[in-house]
């Protein structure tokens, strides 16, 4: 993308400010709307003044944990996607590439196969464990040969592991009807029925991932020039690759544990951020996170409004909203090369 006449980057703080404001609005939107709409004054009252009413209980016990988890998952998916595309220099890379989504699905399938129906918190733990083990396998095998080089090899290994794990998941689903019943709802990608216990399990991983991601983004600009140039600029290539992989794994793992595999968002949010903010990874990574959070929260809330009194899962709303946007963007502009 060609930058406009103004010096590149001068609009970035304004864009970032707008996205932060947008995220705040999306949070309020998610708190105020649902199977019934609650006026904004009552929302703020319940949050900050400790007002006690039926509506306040709905907000603090149901909508608040759900919204916080949506915020965290959206941020995590967006940032993980930007890091993934930056490190692999592959615009088709999504954060599920290290086998994280497939591992999480396998964890949930094992839990359902062994125990039948489980609590949300237990499901989150199983997904986190599965994602962690899958990513650890990919990294252990994949990083052995990495003396630098982009992470393409790692992505191929991840995809191969994903194939293996999804096949095993399919086997469990096909052998046991109960597992299919659990997994068909998990795999849609939804934020319904999440509680504070689930949030408590994911929070540390997500937080660590965010910090690591922002730190890692600083070396990503140099790495984008190629490993040799990056090294001559003083970047420790191997260290930043390893840090990048760790950040992607933590973020993608916790996001998938929260809301199921919403890989499409991780693919699209970085493209959106690039269209807005150009190629400076230090801005790109956090901005992609904010876009992810806004989109996920809005999709979740719209799903609650559209299908009252039931709800349409966030994953489905997101595909229906996000795909046409992606199509429009790819048709309109010259595609930004990576």
């Amino acid at each position, binding site marked *: 993308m060609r930058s406009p006449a103004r010096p590149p980057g001068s609009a970035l703080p304004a864009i970032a400010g707008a996205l932060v404001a947008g995220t705040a609005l999306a949070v309020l939107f998610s708190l105020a709307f649902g199977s019934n709409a609650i006026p904004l004054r009552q929302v703020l009252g319940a949050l900050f003044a400790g007002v006690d009413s039926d509506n306040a209980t709905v907000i603090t016990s149901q909508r608040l944990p759900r919204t916080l988890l949506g915020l965290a998952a959206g941020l995590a998916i967006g940032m993980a996607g930007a890091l993934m595309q930056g490190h692999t220099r*592959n*615009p*088709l*890379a999504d954060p599920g*590439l290290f086998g994280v989504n497939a591992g999480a699905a396998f964890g949930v399938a094992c839990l359902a196969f062994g125990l039948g129906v489980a609590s949300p918190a237990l499901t989150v733990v199983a997904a986190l464990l599965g994602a962690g083990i899958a990513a650890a396998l990919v990294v252990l*095998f994949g990083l052995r*040969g990495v003396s630098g*080089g982009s992470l*393409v*090899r790692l*992505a*191929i*290994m991840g*995809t*191969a*592991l994903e*194939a*293996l794990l*999804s*096949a*095993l998941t*399919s*086997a469990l*689903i*096909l*052998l046991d*009807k109960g597992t*299919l*019943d659990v997994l*068909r*709802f998990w*795999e*849609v*990608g939804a934020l319904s029925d999440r509680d504070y216990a689930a949030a408590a399990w994911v929070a540390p991983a997500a937080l660590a991932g965010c910090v690591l991601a922002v730190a890692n983004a600083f070396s990503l600009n140099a790495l984008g020039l190629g490993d040799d140039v990056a090294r001559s600029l003083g970047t420790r290539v191997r260290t930043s690759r390893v840090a990048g992989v760790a950040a992607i794994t933590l973020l993608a793992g916790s996001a998938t544990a929260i809301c199921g595999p919403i890989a*499409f968002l991780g*693919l699209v949010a970085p*493209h959106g951020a690039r269209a807005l903010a150009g190629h400076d990874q230090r801005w790109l990574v956090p901005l992609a996170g904010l876009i992810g959070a806004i989109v996920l929260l809005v999709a979740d809330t719209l799903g609650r409004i559209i299908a009252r009194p039931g709800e*349409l*899962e966030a*994953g*489905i709303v*997101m*595909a*229906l909203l*996000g*795909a*046409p946007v*992606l*199509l429009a963007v*790819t*048709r309109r502009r010259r*595609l930004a090369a990576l």
Partner: protein
Amino acid sequence: MTGFATARAGRGRGVLVGPVGLVMRTRSVVAGVVVVLLLAVLLAVSVLTGDLDIPVGRALAALAGDGTRIENLVVVDHRLSRALAAVLVGFALGCAGALTQTITRNPIASPDIMGVSAGAGLFAVFLVTRPETAKAFGDHPAGQLLAPAAIVGGLLTTALILGLSWRAGFDGMRLILVGLGVNAIALAGVSFLLTRADLENAQAATRWLTGSLAGARMGDVLFLAPLALIGAAVCAILARDLAALRLGRDVAPTLGTPPGRTEAVALLVAVLLTSGAVAVAGPIAFVAFIAPQAALRAFGTAGPPPLAGGLVGALLVLAADLTAARLPTELPVGVPTAVIGAPSLLYLLNQYRRRTSA
């Protein structure tokens, strides 16, 4: 033989037959012979052995056309057609994967993520989870309508992807991104139908989505064979242009290769092959990704090779189907495909450190 020429080319021997040129490097020849031999062995195993105990002599007689009615039914209609269908489906998927990986210069751009299989799947799942719609097409069992539904779905999705990405010519990257968008919608549709369906129907749909060859008959083989032949012929003719395209869209024209036309033809072939395979066996995942990447390393080629990718795909699906049919509980072929294919690819990845993957 007219138009036949040989020449020394680099470390191998070049052969030219009409428009088709081939460099015979030892590595590729050895790998090719090994794969073809393995295919022959597995074909023999699948035709000569099975649940029903038929002596080898009788099975061969049935193949030659003078077996009893039962022997013909078992050996020709069941075993042979299933094995041939596995070979053709695997070839189609492997070949299609190599083509999409080559024209996008991206190892993860397989037809799986480009919406074609998902679009075909959406139509088929709709038919399975809403049995009342199947009734609207007359008094057929829903199973019989699955293949036509998958073909219609695949072609409609393809038309949609091609239509949306046409903008004074095709651009590989735009095509893929449009495919990703369409894929996301189709997958969301499948999820929606699965979560709203009756659990029995959801199970039937899941089985189909995993990909199975249990129902393959001679008709499927006759339907796929011409497709695979056309695909193989186009790949052989395009080989030079594809190799030129690998060097980049800017370099290709200087070598006499029109990038847009080559990409369009290759993509069309890839889509036809994928739709055909999905119609016969359902969307068997990952063959299109694994086979070309494995072939690239086993054959030591510069990029994902379409024909060799097809051969490896055929070997993978045939081996997987043999396994699937002999497990204590029969699982659809999609499960063993990945269980066999993924570790093989991981092994090859570790054996051969290479700088390129696409």
